[in-house]
């Protein structure tokens, strides 16, 4: 057997550059990007999401009337239609709607990230555990999941908020509590199919512990569907929070949450149409963006689902 040492530099690092070593991954990422780019609706989604993220980052610095975001009152300017001074008009206490909308973007992002984040952190490990272990573990986890899933998410969230008290924080808590079961289902079924793969058996033969198999073999191969669902969920979480806000259980004034804004703006339709319309448009475009992006991601990761 050849015992000559391979080409290693004195520091023990391999002779190839980082670029060469990761050429395959780079190529794969490039391929994903090119596939994604060719999908027009996916690109629209990406643009919308990018705008959303950008605005949520820089909004505090670009809003024309910063004080209005926290509920300054200017009754003299109340319910003014869209104009050069107020692009989206003003609300019933004279606040600039554009300002409140932009600050609300940040809030929506927080909502989306927290809810989706909690849901994945809780749901994914449970799902993998249920799928891999089987037996009683699976039974218990799946039955609990089923109980949560059998109640309409929003109704359950309403009940939780009613118990905890009204407010945006409790709304986020409530929604996080009802969001995770979807991930359990998704990951459990993917894990079941991955469990039987030959490379998992090979890992067992190599002496891998269960933890190692779950982290190193099962989880990485579950990432694609999780990513797709998570990106769609970001939009849906915003919508759900807005719905709670709309019925008055979520954010309370003066918090500039989009759903809460529509809730009040509804009363001023149709004469003072701008009040409800612009927040509505914001919700629509944001959710649309995330949905289109999620669709695009799914097409990239799972070409079979692409309709031809």
């Amino acid at each position, binding site marked *: 057997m050849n015992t000559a040492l391979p080409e290693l530099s004195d520091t023990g690092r391999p002779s190839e550059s980082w670029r060469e070593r990761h050429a395959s991954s780079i190529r794969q990422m490039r391929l994903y990007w090119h*596939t994604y780019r060719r999908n027009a609706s996916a690109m629209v989604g990406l643009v919308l999401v990018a705008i959303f993220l950008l605005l949520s980052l820089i909004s505090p610095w670009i809003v024309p009337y910063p004080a209005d975001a926290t509920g300054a009152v200017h009754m003299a300017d109340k319910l003014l239609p869209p104009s050069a001074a107020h692009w989206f008009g003003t609300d019933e206490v004279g606040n600039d709607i554009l300002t409140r909308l932009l600050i609300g973007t940040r809030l929506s992002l927080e909502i989306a990230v927290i809810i989706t984040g909690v849901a994945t952190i809780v749901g994914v490990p449970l799902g993998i555990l249920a799928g891999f272990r089987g037996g009683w573990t699976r039974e218990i986890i799946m039955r609990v999941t089923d109980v949560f899933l059998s109640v309409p998410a929003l109704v359950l969230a309403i009940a939780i908020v009613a118990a905890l008290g009204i407010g945006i924080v409790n709304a986020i808590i409530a929604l996080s509590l009802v969001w995770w079961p979807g991930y359990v289902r998704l990951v459990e079924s993917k894990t079941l199919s991955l469990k039987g793969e030959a490379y998992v058996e090979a890992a067992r033969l190599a002496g891998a512990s269960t933890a190692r198999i779950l982290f190193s073999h099962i989880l990485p191969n579950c990432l694609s569907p999780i990513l797709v669902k998570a990106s769609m969920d970001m939009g849906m979480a915003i919508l759900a929070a807005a719905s709670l806000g709309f019925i008055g259980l979520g954010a309370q004034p003066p918090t500039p949450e989009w759903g809460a804004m529509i809730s009040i703006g509804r009363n001023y339709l149709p004469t003072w149409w701008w009040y409800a319309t612009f927040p509505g448009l914001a919700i629509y475009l944001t959710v649309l963006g995330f949905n289109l992006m999620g669709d695009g991601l799914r097409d990239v990761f799972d070409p079979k689902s692409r309709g*031809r």
Partner: protein
Amino acid sequence: MIAQLPLLSIEDLHLDFDTFDGALHVLDGINIALDAGETVGIVGETGCGKSVTVRSILRLLPMPPARFSSGAIRFKGRDLAVASERDMRRIRGLEIALIPQDPMSYLNPVFTVGQQLTDVIRAHARNRPRDKRPAEKSAWEKAIELLTQVHLPHPEKQLEAYPRELSGGMRQRVLIAMALAGQPSLLIADEPTTALDVTIQAQILRLIGDLVDRLGLAVILISHDIGVVAKVCRRIVVMYAGTVVEDASAENLFDRPLHPYTQGLLAAIPKLRGDNQQLSGIPGSIPNLLQPPDGCRFYDRCPLRMDVCRTTKPPLVDAGGGQRVACHLYPGPRQEARYG
């Protein structure tokens, strides 16, 4: 000798697949002809294009991204490559039928065998041109007749069964019955026994052989296993990387394989009898179909290559005894006549 019009004649067929990276030149001038009642086997390894070839006969490929860049597929004189979709519907099943590889994925699990079979029978009755519609016989009776033809025991019971209740061999018989439902003159079998056990495979191959004898069908049988093809087919076509490299009777092919690829392929097959010989593989792999070589596609791996092989594509020529080969080692009769 007056040449009779062949039943099927694939003439210089070129097929490309448009992909993200460019056009894959999948078929590079395929020439295969088949007379009525003849049995031809197509063998080759991954990427040779045998499956693509037969699916293009039936136009079962998604036509973008696949497209014919030149050539013709003449069936009973008519060019199928340019026929309309409506005309193709009259041909699929009624004139040319396909037996696919994996019976389970071609049978709908939520319908019974009987429902699927009678569905096919009725569809054929509708698609047949009015003047050729057969006498009225219920689809059910016809189904039982077909299942009997493929030697499925207790046909009435099988009609009520769901596909998952049948074994692999029985499912394949059902698919053969479906293929025969339209009374085709040409049967294409695409790896029909690859998913089956060896003893069941022998049954199915014998069945196909019987049907050929009894019904006078022409058959194109595709397999990666030359032995399978040898059991049913009189003639064998060897394909490599989208080209036909050799086309000969089974005897001639095994007795004196002409093309270096055929020789390599036969030398790579382990023999069931006789002692442990050294197996020789064919090192290397098929050329990149995005930028195929100008000359012979086997050039890189050929142990007998010459300079001319790198620059010029070898034409498929007659090497005597009905054996055709595409290799510069065999210049062909026309050139020989020059010196004769």
